[in-house]
């Protein structure tokens, strides 16, 4: 089956098209990674269009859509998730969500990506590539990491250990989505925000003690 995969959890938006069948590694037919910063909304659907054209595949030939669920900066993250949900809905396809960190690197590793506010999103994986820690959001020095660490090398200095550059890939998204694609019954899409919205209720103002007619 042909699967469209996308991710907007990091400043690099990733869109890929792969041929997937259960039990074998997915074959990536076309892929694009765009340094889009905070312009995911502008660039994502054009990137989807480009990838499909590149592979010579029409929307109608797709069998499923896969999306990263984060963790990642909220506004950009939602662009990818809602795009995947809407594309799948419009074509009547299943949509599979995966932890975006699962799609970074392979094998035993820890993954760190930029969570802004001087924090990292992180997760840890065993030799089989199974996530055994995280996903979490913490100050780099508080993340439970073990070598090798892959992801955003910008954090090497603060971590005091090398961070091998690695990013979300189409192959990684497909690998992480494998079990749900195989079951044919994907989980609901739940974004991995990991942080509460910044919002503080205003200090209570004492209510004016007067009954309001009509209430």
């Amino acid at each position, binding site marked *: 089956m042909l699967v469209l995969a996308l991710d907007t959890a990091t400043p690099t938006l990733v869109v890929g098209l792969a041929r997937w069948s259960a039990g074998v590694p997915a074959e990536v037919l076309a892929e694009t990674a765009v340094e889009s910063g905070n*312009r*995911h*909304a*502008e*660039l*994502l*659907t*054009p990137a*989807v*269009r480009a990838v499909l054209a590149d592979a010579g595949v029409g*929307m109608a030939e797709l069998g499923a859509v896969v999306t990263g669920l984060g963790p990642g900066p*909220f*506004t950009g993250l*939602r*662009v*990818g*998730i*809602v*795009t*995947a*949900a*809407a*594309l799948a*809905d*419009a*074509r009547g396809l299943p949509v599979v969500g995966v932890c975006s960190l699962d799609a970074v690197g392979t094998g035993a590793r820890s993954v760190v990506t930029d969570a802004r506010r001087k924090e990292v999103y992180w997760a840890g994986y065993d030799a089989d590539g199974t996530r055994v820690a995280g996903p979490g959001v913490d100050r780099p020095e508080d993340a439970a990491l073990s070598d090798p660490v892959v992801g955003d090398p910008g954090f090497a200095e603060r971590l005091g250990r090398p961070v091998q550059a690695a990013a979300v890939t189409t192959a990684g998204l497909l690998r992480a989505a494998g079990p749900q694609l195989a079951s044919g019954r994907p989980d609901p899409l739940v*974004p991995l*925000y990991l942080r509460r*919205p*910044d*919002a*503080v*209720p*205003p200090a209570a*103002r004492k*209510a*004016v*003690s*007067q009954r*309001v*007619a*009509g*209430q």
Partner: protein
Amino acid sequence: MSDQPLVLGFETSCDETGIGLVRGSTLLSDALATSVAEHERFGGVVPEIASRAHLEAMVPTVHRALADAGVTLGDVDAVAVTAGPGLTGALLVGVAAAKAYALALDRPLYGVNHLAAHVAVDELEHGRLAEPSIAMLVSGGHSSLLLVPDLSQDVQPLGQTIDDAAGEAFDKVARVLGLPFPGGPYVDRAARDGDPASIAFPRGLTGQRDAPYDFSFSGLKTAVARWVEARERAGEPVPVPDVAAAFQEAVVDVLTAKAVRACRDHGVDHLVIGGGVAANSRLRALASERCAAAGIVLRTPSPRLCTDNGAMVAALGSRLVQAGVAPSDPSLGADSSMPIDVVSRAG
């Protein structure tokens, strides 16, 4: 079969996820999910909470709209979405969703201006807009006077609020009076039992030299808070209905006076009032009184369509399709401060 376009409209500029379906100028459905209750304890809309709620509500609300209209996605001829103005994070959920539906359905996409959509929605109930019309849009996010020679491509700003939006003033005064959020309907209800002439609150920007079509509600809001605090300090009960009525009267007096003046100054005899505050009963009453006296035809959408919804976006989209306006580029984004004279993002 109908040769009129079926347009699917997306609205997510604030805290309402609105999905509407319009065929030509006929309203087929208007599905709404709101996160208003989640914002209440914050006394205002929290953008991140609204954006999260939009994402959760998106696909289910689309399907509610389709079911209510008795159509399928395959029937849709065009997709329209609010591209701005509004809260960036909230807008982006709708823009991304609309772009994806348009791509997957291979239909044209129209990124439209929220304010123009507030005007367009009136066509669903009252037929084609007279052009030119004067439009006054008043809500929690905006207060504007517009000259509308052609709703599909020529909308000109005359004036706007220089501080708080009218609806914001209602929210803040409601809070001072211990009334729930959002304040508009509660102030309106409380005011029914009050005397609007009991307290003389200031009318902002109504002096000889003031900008004739701009609004200011910040001074009024402060005056109300001071008045209430003085009462409380004196240990006297606060007559909530009177304060509500006097405040509301000050707002709607200024709004209607300026709207009528804009009509007169521009030789226009049609006025449309839209936006959430247009649901206010006193605004509707005073506007119709003053318009009748001035020989102006007043049009106001029913209160349900005055507040943000998807049908208004679909209505404007339909207007654009029928006028042959170019659809938006696939690289459409959100523009939190989209200027009012940009009716849609073309090309």
